């Protein structure tokens, strides 16, 4: 069985985001980039499946600039077999990302596609679902547990107020939630092996897709700054402030 795992290069989770002075986006120059944490979980899940003998090939796909190769290499160092980089210099919105992935799905015909439920940069949480529609595949989103059951997968999903287990037929798309697994560290020998693995490069233009943006970013702003806390001298002052300023008491 073959898996396609999609990974996105995003600003590292621990970096403090700064909005560009002209408010057109966020500062990415000289900023540490890493693999989207949800995608790391997706790679880990695929590698585990391969270790269990469920999969025999893991293809790691990224759509982005030349530097996204680094992100693919990370996935290969964790245990992916080969990579595909779809090169583009523009920022694609979720629908366009799904369209591009659908072309790779046509080409590679994976039985299972694993990807993060969302990327931490725009938090869209749309690509997996859109891809399922375009390719007409079953989908299991927000997975916190995945188990093979005969020819199907039982997937436990994190939903409001609890867990839901569904059974999906192949081929399918699984989008990962945080609790699915703990991604492994990359060992030096595996990093070295990853350097030898093949990364195929495809120009996004070669698909002949209409990738025009339907969304327009008007302005990006910092969240309002949190006011610093104040110290009160005694309970009376506290109650006073809760009434007069916080207005949570009357």
């Amino acid at each position: 069985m073959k898996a396609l795992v999609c990974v996105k290069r995003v600003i590292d989770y621990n970096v403090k985001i700064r909005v560009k002075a002209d408010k057109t986006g966020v500062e990415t120059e000289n900023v540490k980039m890493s693999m989207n944490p949800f995608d790391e979980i997706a790679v880990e899940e695929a590698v585990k499946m391969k270790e269990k003998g469920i999969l025999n090939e893991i293809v790691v796909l990224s759509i982005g600039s030349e530097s996204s190769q680094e992100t693919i290499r990370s996935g290969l160092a964790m245990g992916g077999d080969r990579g595909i980089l779809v090169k583009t210099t523009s920022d694609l919105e979720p629908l366009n990302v799904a369209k591009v992935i659908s072309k790779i799905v046509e080409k590679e015909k994976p039985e299972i596609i694993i990807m993060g439920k969302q990327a931490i940069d725009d938090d869209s949480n749309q690509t997996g679902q859109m891809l399922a529609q375009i390719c007409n595949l079953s989908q299991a989103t927000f997975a916190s547990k995945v188990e093979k059951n005969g020819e199907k997968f039982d997937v436990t999903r994190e939903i409001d107020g609890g867990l839901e287990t569904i059974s999906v037929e192949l081929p399918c798309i699984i989008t990962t939630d945080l609790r699915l697994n703990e991604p492994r560290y990359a060992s030096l020998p595996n990093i070295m092996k990853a350097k030898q693995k093949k990364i195929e490069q495809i120009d996004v233009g070669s698909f002949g897709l209409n990738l025009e943006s339907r969304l327009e970013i008007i302005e990006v702003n910092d969240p309002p700054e949190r006011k610093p806390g104040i110290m009160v001298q005694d309970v009376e002052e506290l109650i006073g402030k809760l009434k007069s300023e916080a207005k949570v008491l009357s």
Partner: protein
Amino acid sequence: MNEQLTYLIQNLDQNEYSYESEVISNHSIDWRKNFNGNASIVIFPKSVDKLVNVIKKCNEKKISVIPQGGNTSLVGGSVPLENSKMLQIIINFKKLNKIINLDPNSFSIQIESGCILEDIQHFLSKKNFYFPLSIGSRGNCQIGGNISSHAGGTNVIKYGTLRSNILGLEAVMADGSFFSSMKNVRKDNTGYDLKQLLIGSEGTLGLITAANIRVFPKPLETRVVFGTFSNIEDLLNFYSKIRINYHDLLTSFELVNSEAMELVIQKNNKKRILKKNNFYCLIELSNFTHNVDFFGKIEDFFFESLEDSEDFIFSKSYEENKQLWDYRELIPIAETKLEFCINHDISIPLDKISSFIKKTEKEISLIDKCFRIINFGHIGDNNLHYNIFSTDDKKNEKLKQKQSVINKIIFENVSNHGGSFSAEHGVGQLRIDELKRYKTSFEVEQMRKIKKIFDPNNILNPNKLFKN
């Protein structure tokens, strides 16, 4: 309230002092809970003027002043004495905590002494600068405490000691006079450099109120490598190799021995991520320039230089950097969960570390084979935290009884290997005897004379460093 105290606080605002017993006792016990003194009041001055006012009165009435920052001293330096005949007060600097000015052109920052180290780090990081000091207690300790105890930490290897990065200091002296040497210049050869005496003086010569410190450009990217070695020689050889090839891009090189690793895994519920081995090392490398494929080349270098690279992990993200650093930084926390442990902070010249470790370990195990060594620290700076515990809790009593024998073994071996009995934690109350024994009598005599000149009434942190 005592008459003298009433006089002391005359000019202070109500939130500049506390004599509630709970507040006093919190401030009177040290981080490791080994020293518990008694003070009459804790004062939190909000300005230098207020501090000057209090110190003048203390000098006049011969009241002992215990300067205190974050109270993370590991040698009992920041707490009052247990049996003092003098009235003791604690001056805590937490309210003197303004960041005065960052000068981006001359790469320097002026800060008040009560600024918490981590706050300074965050402030600078937002502005793409980097502070040349980082230690495990950064969330609590204050820069004034760091300067007074001349803290070391994990990145001396790259940025040099704190002393080498301090451009200026301000302090209130024992008689209440104000010492200011805050020139924002690198070069100032104008006679004796008095601020050097204050650095590392552990609050015995003056009360530091502000400093001007060099800052550095923030690295573009930092990665952590965590790996294992079966013997210390290979680890040290590898250190030399990296140092030669990457010198100032190496931002940390830390040692963790097998006992330290097992302790963190057990006491802090950490996952085992590397095969069990005798030694682990945590290496941090940073990219400061726009080198293409910087870390790719480092991976190649590691792979080629290591005989066995099986058990080496390279971090992929800053989250992993943090997770890997945990294995090193949680060791002191894990140690506090031990019933008993003898702590040492020593330095040994690099070429003698292996001989020291082997000899000392053997001698201690001869006393009892349950007595083991938690050995970790900034090995790139020749610095070892070298702590003895018993694998069998029933032998803790015996370990306590043997403490002085064990200390003697360690200190004699340190001295014979040309090292220091206190590398970064200082002397405080804990290492008074060792200072007397292992420093030359000439040095001790000069230190006493200096103390007399600066503090003739012996009010500043008395009976720390040496008995007065």
